């Protein structure tokens, strides 16, 4: 797969995810690798709201097998998860 295409899609996904997350939390600065579930920056509904948002926005289905903190812990992790669920893969990746 053409990496330029991958990166273009990844950027779109990351922006969409970031906008949603930022609308749900209230901190001054959030880096793309900051752990969303530490330090109580998200409320008790955030996790399921994120799942619902991802399913609705990216037309993916998230189930038991996807329950891994590595899939949701940061903006970058969530972006990578969505890309994988939608079958995107960098050229040359194994």
């Amino acid at each position: 797969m053409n990496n330029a295409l991958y990166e273009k899609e990844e950027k779109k996904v990351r922006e969409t995810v970031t906008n949603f997350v930022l609308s749900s939390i209230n901190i001054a600065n959030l880096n793309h690798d900051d752990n969303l579930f530490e330090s109580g920056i998200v409320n008790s509904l955030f996790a399921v709201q994120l799942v619902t948002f991802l399913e609705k926005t990216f037309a993916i289905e998230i189930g038991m097998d996807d329950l891994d903190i590595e899939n949701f812990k940061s903006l970058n992790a969530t972006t990578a998860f969505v890309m994988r669920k939608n079958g995107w893969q960098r050229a040359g990746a194994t």
Partner: protein
Amino acid sequence: MVISRFGTLTRRGQPGPQATDPMQYLLTEQQKARHGNFKAFVNQNFEPFAEEWDREQKIPESVISTLAKSGYLGCSLPLQYGGQGWDTVTFGLLNEALGRGSSSLTGVLTVQAMVSMSLLKWGSVEQKQKWLPLLAKGEIIGAFALTEAGAGSDLKSLVTEFTPSQGGAFVLNGAKKWITCAQFASLFLVFGNLGDCSLACLVPRETRGLEVEPIHDLMGFRAAGLAKLAFKNVEVPPANVVGKPGFALSHVAPVGLHYGRISTACSALGLCRGCFDESVDWAATRKIGNQPLGDIGMIRSLIAAMGTDLEAGSFLCHSACRAADANLPEAFEKALMAKYFTSKAAVKAASDAVQIRGAAGCHGSSPVSRFYRDAKIMEIIEGTTQIHEHLLGRMFVQQARRPVQ
């Protein structure tokens, strides 16, 4: 015989004509038809007996069986699992109809949905195939075992504990309290701690080490079959874990609680409707001297507030259900708003309904006395009013703040 503006005959036990419901222009013809069927079913099978169940603190098995045979207990489950495949709006309408008749009985639908929908979302393929058809048909009743004596609003204080055992299994020890329908449930969805993380698992009633102790003499919801549960070295096979360790409180419980909130919100709406129907009926027929009660300004004031709250609550419930059907992230907040509003409205409506009724409203011969007691419970279950204020207040303030740079 008086017909309220909502079309229900206000003499107990008799179905009314087609309702002139505030929601009529928002419902599809199919939803309207089903709503009518639900109300007729409740009026015939449940409402005339609700007072007796409340007095006896028990819903007869035959009634649970009637509810199960109706297919209503699987209303939101997909057809592939034997459910009805109905939308959340229809689920809400069913809860409203049941809530008008008996809050205790609605508790069965509430917890059945909480367990079913949690499993539907996060269960394994094998768990769904094994348990969902049984839950859909009402062949088993589920119970949502989350609350403990020391952990109601504060779920971080759960002390029920899982410890790893051989072959990927767990041993469960602990206790739960105030578990709706636990007196007759066959399957428990139990939440606890596995070390530092949370775990949810299924525990069938017959499992060795599980003890059930009925709770009696509640103020309201007296026939909802609440019980304490004790788990003494209960063996949990790995196949009974729902979701994965670490995700029970963040992902599994919130799905169940979401449906619990929608159910309770709509059930409280049904209770509001019952209070309104009883109040307008009494106001229209009772006289003080030669003057109908309904001509007295102070009574009109109470009824005006009651009717308007009923209308407002209808829209909030409908909005929450539509958002759930559209799979919107804000569905969770809309359910919070609906439950917060209708449970508080139910308490006020019931209090005012008793006041309007006078001494008769304080006696079991009038349903408003039961509404009064049941309404208060609704401000506490599925998240207290104060927890709702905490969550909603934070949400609204957060939404007003500017996005992060």
